[in-house]
């Protein structure tokens, strides 16, 4: 695992993108997280997280075709880099091993 461990929000966003690839963009990522976890990201947070993830090398992005509903602007689609996939796997391993045999009752 890298020293710059993923924050919880970053984690969620990466997983959402993994689920929504290849058509993951800001709007449906927020929607996915909301529908699966109930977490409601603020209007602006998603962009901050996305740009931070991109700067760290976890995301690639590209522009799609213009869309009428967006006033002719294209959507920006995000995809995971190999590094991100590795990081997610490592984190997943770590969490599973911690959860192994554990039952949280209280």
């Amino acid at each position, binding site marked *: 695992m890298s020293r710059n461990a993923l924050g919880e929000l970053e984690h969620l966003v990466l997983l959402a993108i993994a689920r929504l690839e290849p058509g993951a*963009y*800001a*709007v449906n990522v927020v929607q996915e997280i909301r529908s699966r976890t109930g977490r409601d990201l*603020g*209007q*602006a947070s998603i*962009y*901050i997280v996305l*740009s*931070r993830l*991109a*700067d760290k*090398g976890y*995301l*690639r*992005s*590209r*522009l799609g*075709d*213009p*869309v*009428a*509903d*967006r*006033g*002719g*602007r*294209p*959507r*920006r689609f995000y995809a995971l*880099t190999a590094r991100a996939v590795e990081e997610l796997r490592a984190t997943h391993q770590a969490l599973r091993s911690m959860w192994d045999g554990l039952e949280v009752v209280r």
Partner: protein
Amino acid sequence: MTPRPPRLARRLSALLLPVRVRSEVLGDLEEHFAARWRSGSRAQLWYWRAALACAVRLWLERIRGGLRAGAPVDSPGIGAHMDSLLRDLRGALRALVGAPGVAAVVILTVGLGVGANTAVFSVVHGVLLRPLPYPDAERLVVIKEFLRERGAPGPGEWGAVSYPNFLDWGAQDLPFEGMAAVGTESVVLRDATPPRQIRIGTVNPELFALLATDALLGRPLRSDDEADAVVLAEPLWRVAFGGDPQVVGRRIVLDSESVTVVGVMPARFLRWSSAQLWRPLTPATHSLTEERSFRAYGVVARLRPGVGVGAARAAIRLAAARVAAAYPEANASWDVEVTPLHAEVVGPVRGSLRLLFGAVGLLLLIACSNVASLLLARVGGRRREVAVRRALGATRLRVAQQLLVESLVLAVAGGAVGLVIARVAVPVLIGVAPAGVPRIDEVAIDPQVAAFAFGVTLAVGLLVGLLPALQGSSRRDAAGGTPHARVGRFQGGTRFLDALVVAEVALAVVLLLAAGLMVQSFLYLWGYAPGFDPDGVLVVRLSPDEEAYPEAPHQAALYERIYSRIGALPGVESVGGITRIPVGDGDIQQTVRAVGGPAPGANLLVGLRPVSGDYFATMRVPVLAGRSSLDEPEAEVLVNRSAARALFPDTPLERVPGRALRDTARTDQGPELRVVGVVGDVRHGGLDPAPRPEIYVAHALRSFGFVEVVLRTRGDPLAAAGEVREAIAAVDPRQPILEIVTMSDVIASKIAGPRFHATLFGIFGLLAAVLCAVGIVGVSSHWVSRRQYELGVRAALGARPADLLRMVLGRGMLLCGLGAGVGLGAGLLLSGLVRSLLYGVEATDVRAFVAVVVTLLALAAAALAGPGRRAARADPLVAIRSE
């Protein structure tokens, strides 16, 4: 339709948002806005709150140092671009499959243009452009001598040098690394069965060092070689010696001399000369090398590095002047010329090949403009699609890219077809090329030619794709939605197409003109009456051995024995012989004068033809008066009609036998000869000139050591060749046969050049006409379909079908007329280029011009018929319905 979010809120947000996310955030916000609007909740209020809140938050984040501007990791530059290209590619293939007819026409058209160009370029490259196969071949030159009053000889023209001059020049300081003299002669190779006559080169051994080519077997000649060392050329080695690997060291017999083979040179060494064997040029073997006024040697030299041809010319002229001063009788009126060896080898065909290349380039232009008009018309039909894409925000670049990709796909497919066509066409071109085109057997499609094909394809694709791409992506056209706008706005679109049609027709006219002239020229040569019947005649070239048959009577006796043997063969109708067959090369002339009669004229220059046997019967030359046999060789002569008219103008033909003429070749009081017969005129001196006066004497009187035995066979002449060889061998086994050909082949090879041109230009002209017709049909159809509305209105207003038809025809014929006019003008300007290839017809022949114009206009009218009929059937209801 969903309205846009409140503009003020949008503007304010845009101001605050960091550049990096501005477009994305605004887009997302608008998407939310549209969703809310559709679901009815108060979208505008929401937008105000959400947009500003978001913008402020992100603005604060920016201040804190996040959301730094700069391209995100793995920017969409290459990745997305590749994606869009791939998408365009898939789209292009889909579009092609959707409209296979147009695609097929375009691909075929491009294929024809590219294929023809590649094939011709292969020949041009292989024959003209490729350097000679020697190291530093550009430094090799040929030195010639010429009579000052005749002017310097061009590449490929004769200009032999005298050996003593050559030696004297070599003794002076010249900017050459080496010089070698090259002479040719014919000898009989006794080792072959039957003995065959071959051309050999007698050369300074330095030639081999100059050309720096390794031997295939053994070694090249060296300067210390004895006079009896020889080197074979690979073709002779294979044919006459069966490729014997032990041939080095073998002794063979040339004429009556025994020589030793020291090596075999590869086929590419001096392929363009006719020599099949080389021996050293030594004074011992050639006494004429001592004669300063005997000019019989070619001289090849290699320039020193850095020395140009001009400098070399000046230097050798200086040296020659010094030698001329020392030996004025031999050299006074002679000058020296230096030309590159490459030019010498390819010079004679350079003009013709260039012309062909130009013609096929024109064909490509026609193909390109055809394809451009087809694509333009197609784009016109897809206006709606383009308009929708533009309205959805696609940039002009994107749409243009898509159209360009489509064109490139078509062009590449056409290029592939073209390569296949070229593959097939090149061997055909080589096959029909006239004999004597240098290096033509080395022509092939090599990587350079393939690269050329690829380059042409790309150029075609870009050229042809650019216009439609520019036209199709224009926003102005996208706005053409309503019918009213449609009527007025079209002029811009169709002007391009019209210009293309005019250009195509002009180019086609030029090509057709050239084709017409070439065909006329060929037909003139082919159809002329030679004065004899060549079909079924076999020609056997013989040269009696000078030792065995020294004088004319001996040679004539030999011929007679040969005639009786051959005449006895089944299938041989008649046999005779002549020195210099009709249409052959070479000419012997002398002067004669009429004897007696009312006005004995001056000396007349006539052609001299020794004959024997049943020559005239064999060749079916008509006997116009008297008889055709020369019973008393010393005293009798025959004349042809032209000579009879020229010598005895006041005597009617049937009375000419009995007149006499005087042989004034050597002296004015030469012997008298009695005319015993008058025969028809025969074309001897090549194809073009009018018949000349000629006299026929007996071989027993004059024989020049050379005869062509002619025999007429009942079946295929060549089938008798084997028996003829045996018959001659039975008369004298040591007698070599130089060549056996049919008379028809002789004539055919003479006109092979004009036939080649006529065929090729004819094909190009035909293709051009077809392409033109296709183009006209395409453009007119497009014009009619675009104007359905207008035509419907006219019909509704009372126009009859004939009027509408006339509209289409008139417009189309006007364009073609314009094109034809331009083409004729261009044809006149360019007529000088083809003049040298024409026989019996002027480059500005009026009949050709008229024929071409009439043909093209008729073709255009036929092409316009289909679209014209469609226009005539225009439905007034269409106009009403589209309102």
